[in-house]
C-alpha cells in the first residue's frame, strides 16, 4: 500500500508535538537534529511509532542523520519504505 506523504507529515508533526519537550510546531524543513529537537535516543522511539503507524520496516542502515534531519526527510524515507 502506498503511504501518502501528506498523511505522514501530519502524523509526524503530531508525534513531535507529543514527544519533544517545548510543545513546538515545526516547519517541514526545520533542522530537527541540528537544532537539538530530535536526539538520537528520541529517534529510537520515533522508529517504533513509524513502523507501527505505517506498517513499514526501516532498515538499520537507513537510520541516518540525513534521513531524519527534517519532517520532510522522514516523510520521504517512510514513502520509500511504503511503496
Amino acid at each position, binding site marked *: 500500500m502506498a503511504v501518502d506523504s501528506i498523511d505522514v507529515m501530519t502524523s509526524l508533526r503530531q508525534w513531535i508535538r507529543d514527544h519533544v519537550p517545548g*510543545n513546538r510546531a515545526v516547519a517541514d524543513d526545520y533542522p530537527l537534529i541540528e537544532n537539538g529537537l530530535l536526539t538520537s535516543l528520541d529517534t529510537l522511539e520515533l522508529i517504533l511509532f513509524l513502523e507501527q503507524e505505517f506498517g513499514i520496516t526501516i532498515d538499520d542502515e537507513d537510520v541516518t542523520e540525513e534521513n531524519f534531519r527534517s519532517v520532510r526527510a522522514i516523510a520521504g524515507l517512510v514513502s520509500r519504505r511504503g511503496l
Partner: protein
Amino acid sequence: MNAYPEFTVHDLLANSVDRDPDRIAIIDRDTRYRYRDLARCVSALTAALVEHGVGRGDRVGTYLEKSFEAIAAILAVSQAGAVFVNINPLLKPRQVHYILKDCGIQTLFAEANRLAALEPGAVKVAFFTGNIPPSASVATSLASVPEILQHGSDSQVSRPVLETDPAAIIYTSGSTGPPKGVVLSHRNVVAGAQIVSSYLGTANDDRILSVLPFSFDYGLNQLTTALRMGATLVLQHSRMPGDLLRSLRDYEITQLAGVPPLWPLVLQSARSLEERPLIHLRCLTNSGGRVPSRYLEELRRLLPSTRIYLMYGLTEAFRSTYLPPEELDRGPDCIGKPVPNTEIRVLDESGQECDTDVIGELVHRGPTVALGYWGKEAETRAVFRLAPFASPAFDNRERVAYSGDLVRRDAGGFLYFVGRRDGLIKTQGYRVSPEEVEDLIVSTGMVREVCSFGVADQEIGERIVAVVVPRYSDEGVADRIRAFCLENGPSYLVPRVILLAHELPKTPSGKIDREMIKDAFATG
C-alpha cells in the same frame, strides 16, 4: 631504535610523526590526514598563536565541532605552552560566556557562526573556521584557520614546556555551584594515554572511533591514545544508529569508546549485527556511568569476539578502576580493580582504611590526580588533599583525589559502586549539579522557587526532575519553561519532568529542604 620522550601532549604527536609520518592519523568526513599533515598544520597554528601574542600558561578555548581543525588547534595550544580549554559544542552562549570569564580565555577557536552568537568583545583574538569571517565585533582581532593551514609558516616554534605545566582545563560539575574547571598537567594527560593504551593493548594498527567530545576527559583520551600509539582516529559526527553502523563497518573500527546512552543506539542495529558481525571490533569501552544489564547482555551476545571493558573514574583523577572483559559477570555495580600505576583506597570518615565490604569513600592516588580547580582554592583543598596514608619519613606533600563516591571492596579486591555522598546528578554520561539546572530555570523569570534532583533511570543513569513554584500558575507553564531551557542550555541539562507545587518545604534555617522534596516528588 630511538628512545622517545613522553612528557608533553604534543610529544605524543612528535613521536608518531618521527616513527611513521605517512601513517593515517585522522579521518574526518572521508578525508584522510597523515601524521605529517597533522604535524605541519600544528606547526602553522602554533606560529600563528605565538604571533597573536598567546603566552605560556594562557588559556585558549576551542569551541568547535569535532574536526581535524579542532585537533590541530588543541595540539598547537599545547606546543605554544598554553592551556587548551575544550568547550562542548552542545553548550549555548550562556554557558560559553561563563567558561570564558571563569578561566580568563582571551583567545578562542570557533566556527564563524558560533562566534557570531557570542557577545561583542567576548574575546581578544578569535581564530575562526569556515569561509565567511564573523563580524569583527566579537574580538579585537580575527584570524582565519583555513588560511593559516594553507599558507601558514611551517617554522618550528619551540617553547619550553614541562610535564608539570598545566596543559588543559576540563569543565565539569560538582554537587553544588556552577561548573568547575579541572586543571590537568601534561603529565596527567599523558599518563591517562599511557594507562589506557597499556591495558587495552592499543597498537598502531588500531582504528579508533571518536564518538565522545574532546571536552570530556574520556573523549580526549581516544585522541591521546591514538596519537601515542600512532593509530588512526576516525571522527564520528552523527550518533544516529545507521551512521554509527556505517562507520564501524566502512572503517573497520577496532576500538569503540562510549558512555551509557550510546549503547541502545548501537543495539538498534541488532538485526544487521546478527547478519554481519563486526569482526574487526577488538574492544569496546564504557565510562561515565553503569551500563544497564540488559544492554550489556545484548552487547555480549551480538559482539562475541569483542572484549568489553567497563571503566570508572572522575575528571579530577581521570580513570580510577576498570572491570576487565573476563569479569563482566560480577554484576552491574562492580567497578573492578585499579587501573595500572594507580592506588585506590576506601576510607572512612576518620581517614582510616575500611575493612572488607565496609562502605567508605573512594580515594585515588596516582599520576592522573589533577592539579586542582581553576580559581577555586577552597574547593580544590576539599577534593585534592594530602594523603592521610603518606609516609611520615619525610615531608610528603603528594595530593590524592577524594571522589565523593561511596564504594566497598570485597575479599578478592574488587570494588563496588554504592552511591554518591552528595546531590551530584549523573545523567547521560554528564555530571550535573542541581544548582545548574535551577539556575537555568530561574533565568526564565517564570518561577518563584525551584528544586531539582536526580531520579534513578535504567537508560540514562539518572533523569533530572525539577519541582517549581510558578509565578503565575497557568496552563502550559511547564512546557514554556522546558522550551526556554532547550533554547538556552544543552539538552542534557533540561529536566525530563517538571512538576508544579504551591510552595516548597523549608529547613529550620529557611533553605529549601532538598531531602524532603526529593522524597515527596521522586516518583515523578
